[in-house]
């Protein structure tokens, strides 16, 4: 299979349009993975643990977007038939969904992480509490709005065609929108982390929370900011993916969650540029799989991850931490 993938991506028979098609397919998928992995990374960098409820927050973002644009709940949940009395334009709904998801992420921090942290529990225990929070959220979604699929109407991108032709490649407009929004968010986040005072404070906490606290940086507040941002990114990603491929029930964040974990590890745990790079690499690797073998594209993605970790256990851009004695 590796040979098939390599020959598919490196074939001399490729037309420019084929190459552009492959690049756009890979980048738009990879951008979602990167957005997702960034959420994991932000929390991991300040707490050293993975927030397993992140997938559920992503799912919530999609449902929030759906409801805010005036979507009606289906027939199977406690809220059957419920519809907000207003319908917002898609972009405003997406933004508010991001804010809503950020609020939920803060709630998760408050209930599943902070109590353990305050009692000095092993940080690994937070893996389990976050997993529990994720399961509760997903089941709550199912209880309230049922398990049926929901879709953000194709008319959400009013005025834009369903697909456009770029240098001979036919691309769904929603994929380009996804790529564009993800790029803007990734650049904005990088600029904030590198250039702002609060971004630097976050990095200081990530480096060493105790020292940062001694230097007057409010570690607790920075952890909250990391959770809020992580939730915001997850909410936006959920809404965008919901627009692209519909909301396939309360469990649809699980697949993205697993892929996001892979991206996180590939890029290097806790590395923001690593999350972006890992996402794009996995997205492109999947796009390189020949169409007839697409059913095995996860094998390629995770196989690639496996090889990289054998050669570079800290991930592509991760740091080797010195052993403490």
């Amino acid at each position: 299979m590796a040979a098939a993938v390599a020959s598919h991506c490196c074939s001399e028979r490729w037309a420019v349009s084929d190459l552009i098609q492959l690049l756009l397919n890979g980048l738009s998928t990879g951008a979602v993975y990167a957005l997702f992995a960034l959420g994991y990374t932000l929390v991991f960098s300040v707490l050293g643990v993975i927030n397993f409820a992140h997938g559920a927050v992503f799912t919530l973002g999609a449902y929030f977007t759906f409801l805010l644009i005036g979507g009606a709940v289906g027939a199977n949940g406690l809220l059957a038939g419920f519809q907000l009395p207003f319908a917002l334009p898609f972009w405003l709904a997406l933004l508010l969904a991001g804010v809503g998801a950020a609020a939920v992420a803060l709630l998760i921090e408050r209930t599943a992480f902070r109590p353990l942290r305050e009692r000095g529990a092993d940080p690994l225990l937070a893996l389990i509490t976050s997993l529990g929070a994720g399961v509760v959220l997903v089941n709550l979604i199912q209880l309230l709005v049922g398990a049926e699929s929901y879709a953000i109407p194709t008319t959400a991108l009013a005025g834009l065609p369903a697909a456009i032709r770029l240098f001979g490649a036919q691309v769904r407009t929603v994929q380009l929108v996804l790529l564009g929004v993800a790029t803007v968010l990734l650049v904005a986040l990088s600029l904030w982390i590198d250039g702002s005072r609060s971004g630097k404070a976050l990095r200081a906490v990530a480096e060493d929370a105790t020292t940062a606290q001694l230097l007057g940086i409010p570690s607790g507040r920075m952890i909250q900011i990391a959770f809020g941002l992580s939730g915001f990114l997850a909410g936006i990603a959920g809404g965008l993916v919901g627009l692209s491929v519909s909301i396939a029930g309360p469990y649809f964040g699980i697949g993205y969650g697993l892929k996001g974990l892979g991206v996180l590890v590939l890029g290097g745990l806790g590395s923001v540029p690593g999350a972006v790079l890992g996402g794009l690499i996995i997205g492109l690797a999947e796009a390189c799989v020949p169409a007839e073998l697409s059913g095995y594209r996860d094998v390629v993605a995770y196989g690639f991850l496996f090889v990289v970790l054998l050669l570079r256990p800290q991930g592509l851009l991760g740091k080797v931490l010195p052993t403490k004695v």
Partner: protein
Amino acid sequence: MKRRLILLLTSLIAGTGVLSACGRGDQTAAGPVDLKGGVPVGAVLALSGNANVYGQDQRVGLNLALAALNGSGGINGTPLRLAIEDSGSDDPGANAAMTLQINRGMLAVIGPTLSQQAFAADPIAQRRGLPVVAPSNTATGIPEIGHFISRVSASSGVIAPLSIAKALQLQPGIKRAAVFFAQDDAYSTAETAVFQKALADKGLRPVTVQRTNLADNDFQSQISATLALKPDLIVLSLQGVDGGNMVRQLRELGYKGTIVVGNGMNTPNIYPICQKYCDGILIAQAYSPELATPANRAFVQAFTRAQAAAGKGPLIPPQLTAQAYTALQVVGQALQRLDQRTPLKGLSVAAARKALMDEILGGTYQTPLGEIRFTPEGEVIQKDFFVAQVRMNPDGRSGRFALLQ
């Protein structure tokens, strides 16, 4: 030392508990039928996980059939007691739910929802002598699992070719077919084999056969490659969510030819996913709401009434709901005949299960699906099949399966 002793004792107690739990099912089978609260019948449905939309349609059908049966006297005066267990959407969940129903002393089980789950859980029922009536398993080989396994859902081998024939009748110029199927799903792999044989029988060799996975929802790469081959017929053996996304993305990327879909998309739950792009897809069905028989009219009325009472509007019953209704109707009527012949009260669970299986296979039933019977192997014999075309309403969110003559 003391700690070791406690550990040993705890292990012994736990081990004894596990062993006794394992043996409890067989004790239940040897004991009398528990008629407290009604005649026990179970169901194993996918009410959570990615196949939950099917299970929820089925639960509606079971509840309607239960109300109809108990409203007309139950099993000769004793109500039927239905216990529904959620199997999730995977094999271990189905195994656990099936085992639970067996150990509870159920006389029959309706389910599991997916063929994939049936291949895992039905052998357990077969070994323990529990009659299973599958309401929605269409993969080849389900009744062949054993004597106690039957189904009211006609095999994809019978239904699927009808939609190919209809597509070629509507568009005789079709020359280039492309096929997609979910490689990790028993139903999809079984159905695509049928579709591909039907295409071959019509002299069409697929220009490409694309494999997907159930959890996939972004098909841009595969569609780009497929459309480059200029197909004029695309045949999908996918489930509702992935299939709905595939249809939408095919149309968005400019495919204008005919789309034939399989039984996995035989649910109105695809409408919100492919939206206006669902319009025009062809599908063969084992149920038509327009079938003018007394049994179907009664079912449609009951369904519409229940939906209206729940404030859910005048919906058209989906096939899965009709098949689940039929499955419980079959079990209920077989129980009535058995109880008249040999009162359930005097039978052991094992004897009642064995006799019930014989009754199920021996009967003829007037159901919403039309008249049905069973082969000695448990395969349904159904007379009426249909080909429908999806017609979406102008809102792009609702529609119907319009029967093609």
